[in-house]
């Protein structure tokens, strides 16, 4: 089947809950939600979510695949864990949200310009490169991800904090060149590649 056919068939999948259970981290918990709403009410960023977690769980069960996976909502999660602590059924809601976001990203359905997704990608690439985060490179990359001009403006706005960090020796301005990473970089790369292969095989992603 060609790509277009696959894409069309995907729209009519009605077993989205099973798909989530199989492929999303902690997805097997979704059916346990009893729709009490404590998670949504407890979320400090709640008002910013288009669909709060409680609604997402219901949408998964209603088979609204596209709406869920293309949503910006689960990308709003800041991992404060308020929902997990309060959930009367102990659902690992934070992890499910990250699981959904990751799954949507791997399928290529996640909103391209979502800032959390862009940062997460930058962070991951930075980390995976040397096995250790190069802070100055990551910060600079983040500031300048929308172009040189906005990058300068952002850096200028944050300059006081930056200078403070320099003085407190919390920021190494020479990190671009002095960053060492971990000892066995090749080993890390091999490990990550292997892990990716296993995940792809298990979840049926194209390699």
């Amino acid at each position, binding site marked *: 089947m060609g790509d277009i056919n696959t894409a069309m068939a995907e729209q009519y999948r009605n077993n989205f809950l099973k798909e989530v259970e199989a492929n999303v981290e902690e997805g097997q918990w979704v059916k346990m939600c009893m729709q*009490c709403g404590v998670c949504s*009410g407890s979320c400090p960023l709640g008002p910013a979510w288009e669909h709060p977690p409680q609604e997402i769980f219901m949408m998964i069960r209603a088979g609204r695949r596209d709406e869920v996976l293309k949503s910006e909502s689960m990308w709003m999660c800041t991992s404060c864990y308020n929902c997990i602590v309060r959930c009367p059924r102990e659902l690992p809601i934070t992890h499910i949200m990250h699981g959904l976001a990751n799954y949507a990203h791997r399928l290529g359905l996640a909103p391209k310009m979502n800032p959390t997704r862009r940062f997460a990608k930058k962070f991951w690439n930075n980390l995976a490169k040397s096995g250790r985060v190069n802070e100055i490179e990551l910060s600079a990359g983040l500031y300048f991800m929308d172009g040189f001009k906005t990058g300068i403006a952002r850096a200028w706005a944050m300059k006081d904090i930056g200078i403070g960090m320099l003085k407190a020796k919390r920021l190494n301005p020479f990190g671009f060149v002095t960053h060492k990473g971990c000892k066995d970089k090749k080993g890390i790369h091999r490990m990550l590649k292997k892990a990716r292969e296993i995940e792809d095989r298990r979840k049926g992603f194209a390699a």
Partner: protein
Amino acid sequence: MADVVATHETIVVVGGGISGMTAAVEAAETGKNVILLERAPSLGGRVSQLYKYFPKLCHPTCGMEINLRRLRGNKRIKVLTQAEVRKIEGRAGDYKLSVTLHPRYVNENCTACGACGEAVSAEIPNPFDYGMSHMKAAYLPSLMAYPQRYVIDPSILGTADAEKAKAACKYSAVDLDMKPETITLSAGAVVWATGWRPYDAAKIQPYGYDRFANVITSVEFERLSDPRGPTAGRIVRPSDGKEARNVAFIQCAGSRDRNHLKHCSRICCMASLKQTTYMRERFGDEAQSTVYYIDIRAIDRFEDFYQKVQADPTVRFLKSKVANITEDEATGDVILHGVDTEGYHRYDNRHDLCVLAVGMEPSVDVRSIADVRVDASGFIELGPTDGGIFGAGCAANALDVNRSVQSATASVLRAVQVVNRVAKAEG
């Protein structure tokens, strides 16, 4: 207490609430000798602390009165109050109960004239009103107390107050030299009916029961509504005494929650529905009740009651478990925050008063006392067939009054069979 005669054919009932009283009366009416033990100074238990009970909205005085009459008239029942069971050993047909009798400091001469109460000046929190009122340290536990005898609180022993109480009594009923004693009772079978206690609402941190004056529990609301309660039946806010016309009821406060009580406490939905009728009774069309719920569990025939409450325009139902409560410090109002399930609307609702429909948990950890099987929530399960200790009422499950009484009768039937077996064997 040398006059207590207990044999292998005696049934001991532990707990003198509605379940225990029913069990005692029914066992005695089948011709068995019964000893009824109660930890408090009076029989009656939690039911006597209600304003009304569902679904017929009768006053507890009614149901209690009938049971008390049957109990008083039956010579086969021996009631011991302020009696606490420490240990049960043995087997079916041959149990030994170690029981501590706490002193009342008032003997059988008491006529409940009240002279000691008038003489004493020290006041203590009144447990009958869940501490919302104070009473004299020489007191009658409640209007319906049985036995109708005063109690002197041990906190005033050795003070001038105690001597005043003694001097005031015309019947030499005050005996300050009473000491606690431990007795051993024999029993063929035991009916364990120690009932429930409200879940500690302060443990539900986001609801702020321990921080906000106007967040109270459902059992406290019962006392507020009772004309003989701490406010003479006026539904007012603890913070400023202002009438609480706009009241929020939060369901599943502690129940159905793996962080608190895993089980559904079964009574709380009906209790809150009932309490909305108190609101209407007090304020008429001015009442505003809002019930926050996950789902209303008005089981079987209670559905009628639920429909009647739904038809009342002063009662609003909001399908949502409240996430947290804050307090408006200037007015003392409580503000409930959450998201509803029917449309996912975010709300910040202001109310005069918030009532937490707290769950039921067993009032006693029975495993430390007797060898019985309990479920994950601590309620007694039916043990092996050769056992002789039977849970009844809320010691066995989260039950309403009706089902507690049924459960008590069932346990008595089992206990009677054990005792009959013993009687046959002994010839």
